[in-house]
């Protein structure tokens, strides 16, 4: 019966006219009465009853006690729903949400295509420079001494030390029109120029098997990026926007620009980069340490 065509089932259910049922009713009553006499009888499926419920199960006539027993059993089977109730318990809430976010980040990393490119746009689609928002968490201009500026390179690299902007600019330059997406929901298409992350890592002799790149900024901002993203062909150590050197509001003299990451990952005013295999729990990123997704990938 379970595999019956539902249309037929419905037909049968509707065939179950009052006349039919009235004729059967006394028999049902007798049956359940006799079964009551033999306690703990099997579930009383009334064989003579035509029709099944919408789920394909026979419609049954049962005692109230049996109904109570079934209801209790079926209710217990919904226990998994109560597990979600753990989110309502203050003590468990944040740990559970942290797990949820960590799982989403893990899945995001798996999904990331190392060679999958973000869409690039024609110059016509690029927002005017005046409409590219200045976004900062603290100060719009941390007062970097652009003349004396050097980038400190540390960690798992063959050539640690201080790097001048000219050394970075001597690497092949990439200019691209890509979408900058803010976690808040807005986005803007901009023009960015800089050197590829992969070329920069080669310059400093980074251990290509290392897992993370940490960066620290002149405005005390800090970030960490998974190595797969640093090596992505569209990831830039960006020193130009709209054909001009980065201005102070956009992170002069050097910032990250990764069209596969959200805006808060694109650290500005870079001071220090560090290649590492271990992230410090409370130094994963300025916003990440307050609850944003660490992966922040697009």
């Amino acid at each position, binding site marked *: 019966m379970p595999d019956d065509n*539902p249309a037929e089932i419905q037909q049968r259910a509707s065939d179950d006219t009052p006349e039919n049922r009235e004729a059967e009713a006394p028999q049902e009553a007798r049956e359940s*009465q006799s079964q009551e006499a033999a306690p703990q009888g099997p579930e009383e499926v009334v064989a003579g009853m035509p029709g099944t419920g*919408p789920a394909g199960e026979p419609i049954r006539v049962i005692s109230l006690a049996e109904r109570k027993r079934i209801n209790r059993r079926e209710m217990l*089977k919904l226990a998994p729903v109560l597990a979600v109730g753990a989110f309502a318990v203050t003590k468990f809430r944040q740990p559970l949400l942290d797990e*949820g976010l960590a799982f989403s980040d893990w899945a*995001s990393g798996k999904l990331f295509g190392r060679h999958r490119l973000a869409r690039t746009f024609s110059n016509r689609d690029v927002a005017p420079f005046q409409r590219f928002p200045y976004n900062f968490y603290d100060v719009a201009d941390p007062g970097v001494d652009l003349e004396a500026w050097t980038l400190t390179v540390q960690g798992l690299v063959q050539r640690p030390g201080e790097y001048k902007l000219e050394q970075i600019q001597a690497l092949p330059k990439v200019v691209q029109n890509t979408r900058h997406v803010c976690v808040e*929901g807005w*986005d*803007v298409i901009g023009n960015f120029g800089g050197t590829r992350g992969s070329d920069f890592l080669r310059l400093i002799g980074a251990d290509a098997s290392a897992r993370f790149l940490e960066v620290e900024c002149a405005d005390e901002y800090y970030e960490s990026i998974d190595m797969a993203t640093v090596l992505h062909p569209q990831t830039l150590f960006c020193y130009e926007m709209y054909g001009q050197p980065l201005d102070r509001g956009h992170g002069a003299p050097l910032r990250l620009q990764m069209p596969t990451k959200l805006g808060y990952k694109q650290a500005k005013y870079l001071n220090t980069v560090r290649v590492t295999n271990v992230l410090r729990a409370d130094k994963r990123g300025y916003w990440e340490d307050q609850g944003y997704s660490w992966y922040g990938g697009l």
Partner: protein
Amino acid sequence: MATTAAVMKPTEVPATVTVSYEHPWAVRIAHWLGAVAVFVMIGSGLRIFRAFPSFGPKIPQQDFVHIPGQFTIGGWLGGALQWHFTFMWIFVGSGLMYLIYQLATGHWRQVLFTPRDIKGVWPMVRHYFLFGPKPAVDMAYNPLQKLAYTSTVFLGVVSTLTGMVLYKPVQFWWLTWLMGGFHYARIWHFAAMCGFVAFIPGHLIMVALHGWNNFYSMITGWKRDPEYLD
């Protein structure tokens, strides 16, 4: 024990009830997990939207609507994103569970709204809202129910696909393209949410009107004295 029947007088015939299995376990689990997930996704989604309540550019920003904080979940953007990125798995998981069950059992035929159901919608609306006569019930779900439940599946699919675009526009570049771009995905995502917001009060009113027995069947699966036997 055997004597019980003999002693029993006719007036003491044990009470029996007719019950029908309406909602299998998979459907009930999916329903309640989905209900919780939709609630959380809407609440946290509104808080996320509040961070940039516009569908236009950032400069100049023109807000579309202001969403009062007390209608939201998460407390701040980062908190709301945690809820959203956690419950999205429950939302999609319960939805997939429901769809797989419906497809595997063939029960989708009972609930899928098809063009044949169109003509039955208005009589049901007239019955519910304008005190019209009750149309004859000859199927498990009436045309208005089919429309409502099929709509929620549609809304679930749309909110999932558009959500995937907003979450990973680069990785799901083909979906981004299909949705008409990142901006449109954001609009469709919001629209799907509005669809759920429209469905929920109607659904709750109907549940309230149909009483405890009907509601209880979504918990235990078995409905007492099903109306299609009347």
